[in-house]
Every structure is written in structure tokens, then in C-alpha cells.
């Protein structure tokens, strides 16, 4: 599209005001969905980080005399069938997916990125055998495999997150490999090679860091949200997720889905929906922004 560039005013300014104004104008340009989603993501991040510092004894919270209370000032999301505060559990439930999701996301992005870059850059028999292994893992039906693992092994959220990150490595590696293959043909990468840069530096800095950063971040966020998703799904299918009494959003929905009142299951369900939506929108937004910046 042909657009007229508006006149650019160059103002003298201090470093912080430059930073602020760049940030401010960048923020203002973002679509509403990105703004909303990043607010939610930041909230989840904050809650996730401060969560371990808040003590909560899920055992002592059980109080059968206050079962199924409606939302009120004291319990502002009501109580569940065991008389536990839904709001508190919802908050504490972030812990169940936050660190496992973070670990899974980082692990998948890191390993996937490295493997993908190696496959794409080196080719040859190393690349081919690596990608054969990756393809094999990719062929495994994710959900089926996870259900299987969780049925036959004692359930643990760490196991779930590790398996799901392993299952995601191939797809991330494939994306990165394609990107690296495409970049490998680019002149400036060839120029780097001609300048005698070390291949490791080219891969790690010029390709992975500079070019695939946004892509990897997006995939990481995706894996993170998948851990939340899978934890919920497995909790629903048969208590394969986080075990009672420790709260997770998944087992909150699963445990109280037959309860007489709506809030013990509807509110966690809503939290899941909003968080996953926000995470995905945030990831998309980051990727889009990166593309815009490149253009």
C-alpha cells in the first residue's frame, strides 16, 4: 500500500523521555486486543511470581459447615462443596500451571530452537536423522499419549509439563528449521559466513536471537497455554492433573462440575478461557509487532 509518510519531528530529549515516548507511542499504536491481553498476561505473571510467598494450607481450608455459599463480601467468589473459598483457590491455582508451564515453555522453545537451527543449518546426515526423530515424536498423537502417560503413571503436573514440552519440540524445531533454511539463502547470512564469523555465533546470535526471537517467544507462550489447557483436560478426564487438596483451575472445574451451584466450576472455567485467550492474543501481538518493526 502506498502511504505518505508523515513528517518526522526530531526533538532534543533526555534518555528517559525518549524511552518513555517510544514506549508510549508503541503502546498507543497497539490494537485493543493486544493491550487487554498484555494486561492480563502481566497480571498472571505477577500473581504467579508472588504466589509461592502467600501461605495457604489447602487442608485447613476445608470447613464443611460453609459449603456452597454464594458470593459475598467475605467469600467474594463463593465457596465450593468442601467449604473452601473459590477466590483463594483460584488465586492459588495459578501456581499449579505457572512454573510447570514456564519450565515447559522455556524448555520446548530452547531445545526446539537449537535442534531446528542445527537441522536447518547443517543438513547432511545429522540434520536428516535429527529431523527423522523429530518427525517420529510429532507423529505421536499428543492428547492420546498424554492421557496414556497420565493413566498409567502416578499423576504429576511436572510429568505432564515435561511430556507436553517434549511433544511440542518437533513442531517448534520445524518452524525454526524452515526459517533457518530460508535465512541460509539470504545474502547477509552468506556475507557473515564470508566474513569468517563462527557458525555457532551466526546460528545463536544472528539467526536465533535476531530473527527467531519473536517466533520462539510466541511458541513458548503457546506451550505455556497448552500446559494450562492439558492440565485442565486431564483433571477433567479423571484426576490426572494436580491432585486434591492442592488447587488447580482444572481440578476446580472437574471437582465441582456436578455441584448444585454454578460458581465453583464456572469461575475457574472463565478464568481458563480468559487466560488462554489472553496468552494467545499476546503471543500473536508480539509476533505481529516484530514483523511490523522488521518492515
Amino acid at each position, binding site marked *: 500500500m502506498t502511504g505518505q509518510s508523515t513528517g518526522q519531528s526530531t526533538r532534543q530529549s533526555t534518555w528517559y523521555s525518549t524511552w518513555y515516548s517510544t514506549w508510549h507511542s508503541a503502546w498507543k499504536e497497539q490494537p485493543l486486543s493486544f493491550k487487554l491481553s498484555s494486561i492480563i498476561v502481566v497480571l498472571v505473571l505477577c500473581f504467579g511470581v508472588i504466589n509461592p510467598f502467600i501461605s495457604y494450607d489447602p*487442608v*485447613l481450608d*476445608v470447613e*464443611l459447615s460453609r459449603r456452597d455459599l454464594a458470593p459475598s463480601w467475605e467469600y467474594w467468589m463463593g465457596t465450593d*462443596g*468442601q467449604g473452601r473459598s473459590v477466590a483463594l483457590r483460584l488465586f492459588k491455582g495459578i501456581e499449579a500451571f505457572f512454573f510447570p508451564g514456564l519450565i515447559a515453555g522455556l524448555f520446548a522453545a530452547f531445545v526446539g530452537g537449537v535442534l531446528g537451527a542445527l537441522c536447518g543449518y547443517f543438513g547432511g546426515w545429522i540434520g536428516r536423522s535429527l529431523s527423522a526423530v523429530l518427525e517420529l515424536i510429532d507423529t505421536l498423537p499428543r492428547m492420546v499419549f498424554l492421557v496414556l502417560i497420565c*493413566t*498409567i503413571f*502416578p*499423576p504429576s503436573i511436572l510429568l505432564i509439563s515435561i511430556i507436553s514440552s517434549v511433544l511440542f519440540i518437533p513442531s517448534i524445531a520445524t518452524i525454526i528449521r524452515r526459517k533457518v533454511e530460508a535465512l541460509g539463502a539470504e545474502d547477509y547470512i552468506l556475507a557473515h559466513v564470508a566474513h569468517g564469523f563462527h557458525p555457532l555465533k551466526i546460528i545463536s546470535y544472528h539467526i536465533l536471537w535476531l530473527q527467531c526471537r519473536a517466533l520462539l517467544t510466541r511458541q513458548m507462550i503457546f506451550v505455556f497455554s497448552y500446559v494450562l489447557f492439558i492440565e485442565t483436560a486431564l483433571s477433567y478426564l*479423571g*484426576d490426572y492433573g494436580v*491432585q*486434591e*487438596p492442592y488447587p488447580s483451575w482444572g481440578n476446580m472445574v472437574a*471437582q465441582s462440575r*456436578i455441584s448444585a451451584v454454578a460458581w465453583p466450576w464456572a469461575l475457574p472455567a472463565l478464568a481458563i478461557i480468559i487466560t488462554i485467550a489472553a496468552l494467545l492474543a499476546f503471543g500473536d501481538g508480539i509476533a505481529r509487532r516484530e514483523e511490523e518493526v522488521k518492515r
Partner: protein
Amino acid sequence: MTQKNMVLSLYKQGSLLLLGMIALVLCTPQLGNAQVFRYPESSKQSSLMPFFVENMSAVRITEFIFEPLVTKNKRGDIEGVLAYSWTPTPDGLGITFKLRQGVKWHDGRPFTARDVVFTVKAAQDRKTLFNSKSKYRFIKSVQAIGDYQVQFRFIQPKKKPEELFNFKIIPAHAFKSTAIKRLDKFNRRPIGTGPYKVEEAALRVTKLVKFDGYWGRASIRGVEMIHTPDSSEQINLLKYSGQGSGVQAVIFIPPKNLSIFENSDTVVLEPYHTVSWWYLAFNHKNKGLSDVKVRQAIAMAMDREELLGAHLGQGDILSGPFTESSPYYNFDVEAREQDLDEAKSLLDQAGYRMKRGVRTKGRTKLTLDFVLNKDLPNSQQLALSIQAQLKQIGVDVKTTFVDAALYQEKVFNRKQFDLTMNVWSFNEIEDIFPLFRTGAPSNYISYSNKAIDAKLDESRRESDYKAHKEIMMNLHQMLNEDLPYVFLWSLDIYSGLSRQLKDIFIQPYYYYSFFKDWSLK
């Protein structure tokens, strides 16, 4: 753009088609299975073959298909089924059954003494592998006398031997040898003498139809068992009992759902007493738990009334290993009430002091691994509450929920547990010998107490009813003191049955023993 119009018209046609389909579904008359009795089961039968029944679902469904020689009638007396008369030998070492004539197998062949002989031989065959082989071990020999008479000899003298012949008879002609394989086709399409024969054993539904050549009478035309793992779904189905896709009976209604049917026009709640009781077992290999004071303290920390009321509904709190309806129940023994102070002082006496919130003595910490089977009803909620109650006296409980196979492995084989909760179910009389005798097969808690062992051995030897009862009541008292388990409760179990059913009588263990008398309107 014409694309838009194209899309619109396509959608119009599509939605018309969809509407038509919905209308079709709505208008399809519910297929006329009014005379078919449908019931859900939360687990699928392990097999349709009587030897291989490993869950209650299988116990119940084989009741429709097979018949024993004798059974207990509604009054509790022994009554002939495939046998019409029997004469025990005076020495108590044998019995002769006269068999009913004119009984036919589902494939039309006549039932004869050969089948009875075959059944016992097959059960005793080393290559037929099933877990209740001990039921047949008392028989030394079996012999057919003509076509309709069978003679048994026993290893040991028996008091009322006919009571032991309630095992189901399988047809000799359906098998090549007495070594019966688990994966045999017969186990899916069995042939019995019972009032119902198997029509279809599909993934979720097992369909039975009335056997026309049945020697007795049965009123209802067919039976369908629907595997419905979700208990709330079972309730849902019972709500539609009037319609084609509803069910007419739910065998166990969770207490919290009882209120749904309390004033129902369509469903009646039918209580029945199973001979089963719940217990909290200790692993006696655990150092802390081998101390009786600790066990008593744990028992006293629990409020069983509250646990029962909140999670399971009505039942009797027990003080020993029998149900209240059992002849051996010792009413003089009181169940322990919750008494936190007493529990704490017991722990103090045992030398356990509070240390960072957990009772500790030397190296032994009262941090217990509580392993539970997920399939136990309401196990999660119960475990949570028990956890909370034990926390009050400084016993730290970690819960692990596992599925049946893993539970077996963890608890029974490897004994990797400190606490577990479970249910013992008995078909008639509680035989506690294998539970508490040192080294007995069901004594998975590694319990060993010389006095109890002596008493148990004595009970085995004693054949006089009164003396036996005395011993058992004694045992009750002793077990309540020594607490190998915390005896919890026996439940009042309610079935939900459709009001369309008439002449209902439920056999507590086999459930459908009297089903042929039931009728459906």
C-alpha cells in the same frame, strides 16, 4: 459479487437440511423397548464367564445368565435351583444332588450331571486361572450317577455342605478341555441355563434377551447393561426412566444425590444391606504405626460421624470387623468417639512431640503416605477431610490417588503406603481369618499379633455355633483394642428403582438373584 449469493444459498440449503435432521431425530418414535430393563454400571464386567468375575458388575450380570445348584431364598433358606433335592452323607464328607430335568442350555442342549462334574473339574484344573479357586478346594471328588444325579466327596467334614454349592454351572459341551482360557470366545458369548441369554456384548452395552426355553418363569423381556463410568450421568439417566433412553435402576445412588429422588413420582429409593464395611488400614511395617497408641490416637482424632454424614450419607459406625447385622457383632464394644485431647495425650505417652507442626519421636516422623484408589466412591473428599482431622493432632498426611491397577501394585504388592482406605465386601458371612492372621493372603498390612492369631486359629477349629460366636465376639473386642484397622462404617446403600418395576426384591450381594420375579409395566 456472486460469491456472496452462492454462499447464502448454500447456507440456506444447509440449514434446511440441518433442521430436517433435527426434526427427524425429534419425531423418531422411541424404539419400543418398553419391556426391556436397563441399568447402568460404573465399571464394565470383567467377563461374562462365572469363573472370571472380578468385579461386582460381573457378579451382577452373570446372575442373569447362569444358575447354581442351590441358592438362598428370600428368607435365607437354601433352595434348589438346578438341583431339586440333596442328601448329605451322615459323616459330613459327601453330598448327593438330584438334578432338575428338562433344563436346557441357551443353545438348546439339555443340562445334565456331566455339566456339574465338568464345572468342578474345570474350576480345579491347574490351568484355569482365576482368583476364587479356593471356593472349590473343599471338594475331593465329584461323580455323575446317571444323567441327573451327582455325588460329591469332601476333604474335611462339613456342617451344612449344601450351602457351599452356590457356584454357577457352566456347560461341558462348550469347552474342549477343563483348562478354560480367559480369552475364550465363550466368555463373551456365554451359554448358560439362566433366564436370559446374551444377545450382544458391545463396547458399552451388553444386551440380554429372555431365553424362551427357560425352565422357570421370567417376566421382563430383556435386560441391557450400560457402562456409564460417570455417576452423575447415571443419575441423569435414572431421571428419564420413563423414556426409551432412560434406565430403570441405579444400583448405588451417592448419598448427596438421594435428595433428587426423595419425593419423586417415578423413582423409588430402595435400601439394601450389603455385607461390607469400610476401614482405614495401617501399614504395620511403619515404625510409628506399629505402636498401638499411635493407632489409637489416629482413631480418636477422626470424627467418623461427620465424615460419614458429609460424604457418604447414612450408615452405622462400627467398632469391629463385622456389620451390625452380623451375628458376631459385639454391641458391648463402643466405637471410639472423636476426642482430640485424649488423642494428643496418647501421642504424648507414646513419646511423640510436636516438631515443626509434625509429631516426631527421634527419627520417626508421623508423616504418613495415604494411598487411595480413585474408584472408591468419594475417596477424594473423604481423604481431604481425614487429612484435615489428622492434622489437628499433628499427624501429617500426604494423599496419593491412583487407579486400580496401580493401587494393587503399590499397596498389595509393594506395600508402599502408610495409610489406605478400602472396603471389604463379603458375600455372606464375614470371614476375618485371612485378614488378620499372620501371613494370611489378605493380610496385606503385615499385621501380626500372637493373641489374635491364636484366637483366629481357635475360631477355625471350633464347629459349635455358640462357642464360635463367643470367640468371634471376643475377637471383635480384641481387634478394637489393638486396631489393625480403624474400623469405619457400613453404609446404608440405596438403589434407585423406577416405579414401573414391580415385585422387586434385591439380593444384597448378587443383586439380581430374584430378578426373574420382577416385572416391568
